[in-house]
């Protein structure tokens, strides 16, 4: 047992911190979020070309770096901390994991290869607030060598810009989980329409995707692309999202401590007021525990990814623990940060609101805290 970063992991984390601090500045974030694309394509190129982050946990066989999910989580933590605007979550946490869980060797070689080369991708699976198996409402029909898909997806992260997509659909007329299959398709084709959704949290784009008799070859069906693979993918993505939240929590704490040290009222730095100190202490508690949660979940994810057959309860539990803690805690830290910033926290000019909005948006993505707690309760009690 060794529950600490190895030297190599620490190095990756530190270099991510250094890089993102310099590139994902407040000005850069604000510039990116005002574009339609939602991110800086040039920065994405650097990220892929120089740092090779998009390939971090893709096995070396497929051209990736072959590192573990611990490194993935370490990167997401820093990205959440610096509010990086990039199609990284969609490409790595969603699409790459889906391919790892569901692709045949050939499919992995092909599509993971594209991701290694800098392609963006995402996963579309639900059209409602339902993150469980019932949320999959698009359907498909097999017609000879083709498959025809119909339906609508909402909350598709970076759906407007991803170069290819993994789509979840259920066989027409089958309402069992066993009817669910995954398909990989390129974005630009007849029968697939996408519409970017304006979002309160401008640091992450979401889209609507409509399928109208989208015809794809049978080979687009991911070989192991069943509900179990999708569920595992979502759990892996949930851990990445929690890691972003943990990173944001730390940054909110740091910003707030710095601000309260500077800001004076009643002739004292407001950091000297016990009410402020105690709120900050609670923020730190939440933040430290969040880190324990995501590192543990990262180790569990790594085991699950390493074992193709591991669809056990461990990953589900670790993901739900991490997300339920981090979702509420990140929002709490953001809310307290805003409150402690006082009036200026309420302005567009200060960055607090960017984190605040991201916290609320991320809270709802992939299940909020109550939803994940009910998952845990079901494991324990039913």
């Amino acid at each position, binding site marked *: 047992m060794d529950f600490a970063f190895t030297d190599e992991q620490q190095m990756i984390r530190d270099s991510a911190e250094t890089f993102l601090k310099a590139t994902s500045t407040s000005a850069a974030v604000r510039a990116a979020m005002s574009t339609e694309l939602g991110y800086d394509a040039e920065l994405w190129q650097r990220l892929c070309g120089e740092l090779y982050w998009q390939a971090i946990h893709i096995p070396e066989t497929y051209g990736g770096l072959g590192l573990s999910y611990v490194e993935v989580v370490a990167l997401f933590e820093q990205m959440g901390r610096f509010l990086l605007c990039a199609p990284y979550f969609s490409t790595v946490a969603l699409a790459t994991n889906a391919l790892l869980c569901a692709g045949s060797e050939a499919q992995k070689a092909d599509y993971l290869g594209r991701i290694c080369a800098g392609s963006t991708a995402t996963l579309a699976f639900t059209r409602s*607030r339902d993150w469980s198996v019932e949320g999959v409402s698009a359907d498909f029909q097999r017609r000879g060598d083709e498959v025809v898909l119909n339906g609508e997806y*909402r*909350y598709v992260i970076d759906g407007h810009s991803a170069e290819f997509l993994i789509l979840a659909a259920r066989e027409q007329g089958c309402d069992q989980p066993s009817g669910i299959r995954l398909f990989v398709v390129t974005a630009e084709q007849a029968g697939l329409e996408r519409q970017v*959704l*304006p*979002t*309160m*949290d*401008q640091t992450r784009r*979401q889209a609507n995707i409509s399928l109208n008799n989208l015809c794809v070859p049978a080979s687009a069906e991911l070989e192991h692309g069943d509900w179990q693979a999708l569920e595992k993918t979502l759990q892996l993505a949930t851990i990445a999202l929690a890691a972003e939240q943990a990173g944001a929590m730390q940054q909110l704490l740091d910003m707030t401590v710095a601000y309260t040290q500077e800001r*004076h*009222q*009643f*002739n*004292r730095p407001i950091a*000297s*007021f016990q*009410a*402020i100190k105690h709120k900050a202490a609670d923020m730190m508690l939440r933040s430290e525990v969040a880190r324990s949660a995501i590192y543990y979940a990262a180790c569990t994810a790594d085991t699950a990814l390493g074992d193709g057959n591991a669809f056990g309860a461990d990953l589900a539990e670790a993901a739900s623990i991490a997300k339920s803690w981090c979702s509420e805690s990140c929002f709490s830290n953001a*809310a307290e940060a*805003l*409150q402690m910033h*006082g*009036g200026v*926290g*309420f*302005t*567009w*000019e200060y960055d607090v*609101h960017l984190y*605040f909005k991201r916290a*609320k*948006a991320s809270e*709802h*993505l992939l299940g*909020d805290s*109550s939803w994940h707690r009910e998952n845990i309760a079901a494991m324990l009690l039913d």
Partner: protein
Amino acid sequence: MKLQFNQDDEIFRREIASWLEENLSGEFAPLKFRGGPGDEHMFPEERKRWEQRLAEGGWTCVGWPKQYGGRGLTIEQQVIFYEEYARAGAPGRMGHIGDGLAGPTIIAFGSDEQKARYLPGILSGREFWCQGYSEPGAGSDLANVKTKARFDEAAGKWLISGQKVWTSLAHESDYCFVIARTDPDSQAHKGLGFFLVKMDQPGITVRPIEQITGTSEFNEVFFDDAECGAEDIVGAPGDGWKVAMGLLGYERGVSTLGQQMAFQNEFDEVVALARDNGAAKQPAIRQRIAQAHIGLKLMRYNSMRMLSGDKGDGSLQREALIYKLYWATWHRELGELAMDILGPEADILAAPPYELNRLQSLFLFTRSDTIYGGTNEIQRNIIAERGLGMPREKRW
């Protein structure tokens, strides 16, 4: 102790309700449910015309004594007025600061000349006021006011210099009441003055604050030797604290019940949403909706106690002391509840580039409720110190 309104009051209720129904039509119909907190920057001109319509009906300054042109309503009738006003979805009052704060202050502390000069414009819905209270370095700590007023003997005028912040609708206002330090060497609550200042003058610059919502209704107001007539100080130089404290009393007056009716409208929208999107079936959401309902009812009961002046155990002061902390926290939680009922849909805006829907606006705007007018933390200090006699914070 009794809850019922008497028959005359119920007749009065029907009168105002039907007046509102009749008049909130035609050109004013689009103003329904607009102009509240978070939406105050919308339709300023139309809402100013609405103030004049109100004045024509005799519905401005309903609580002022008749001798000053008010309607002289009883407490009960004022409660009813504000409730029906909000229930009808009548627009956020552009005249609120004049009607509810500046006017009552001038009536209580002002000179006859000030009364003659300023009250008619408020009554007629033609002159609008804003308040110059908070300062960037002072937050809501009046004792730390740095804005200065010095009397220019030659010109026979006060010259005011400094900066105020969080001034709602400053750019739409004709006058501002300003707390400024008349004695530059004074400290804390001493040496303050309370000034009535014309906004349209070279010495005043208004800069809108871009808020978390992407909109601006708060402003920074810069005073650079802004002029104020010798006759336009309320009370004597040095009385500013006393006058301002009186004014704080009005802020917690009957209009709170109108505010609550507006909250009720928001709450009803949240409930309707939960029913529509199925969240009303989720146990955790049900608990929170019930809690919000309970919180709002209790807010109302508490205000009724406040207004009935229950001094049973010296508690008028006590229930009033908690009021700001209570409603601000409740309102902020309502915003969070609305988002959590929306779930992932909470993140999707009404329209690009950044048009919030009403509930998103509620969510974001209510973050200011626990900050302006004394943060929750300041409120707790005040409650502990004034309500419970605990030691004051030391200055360093």
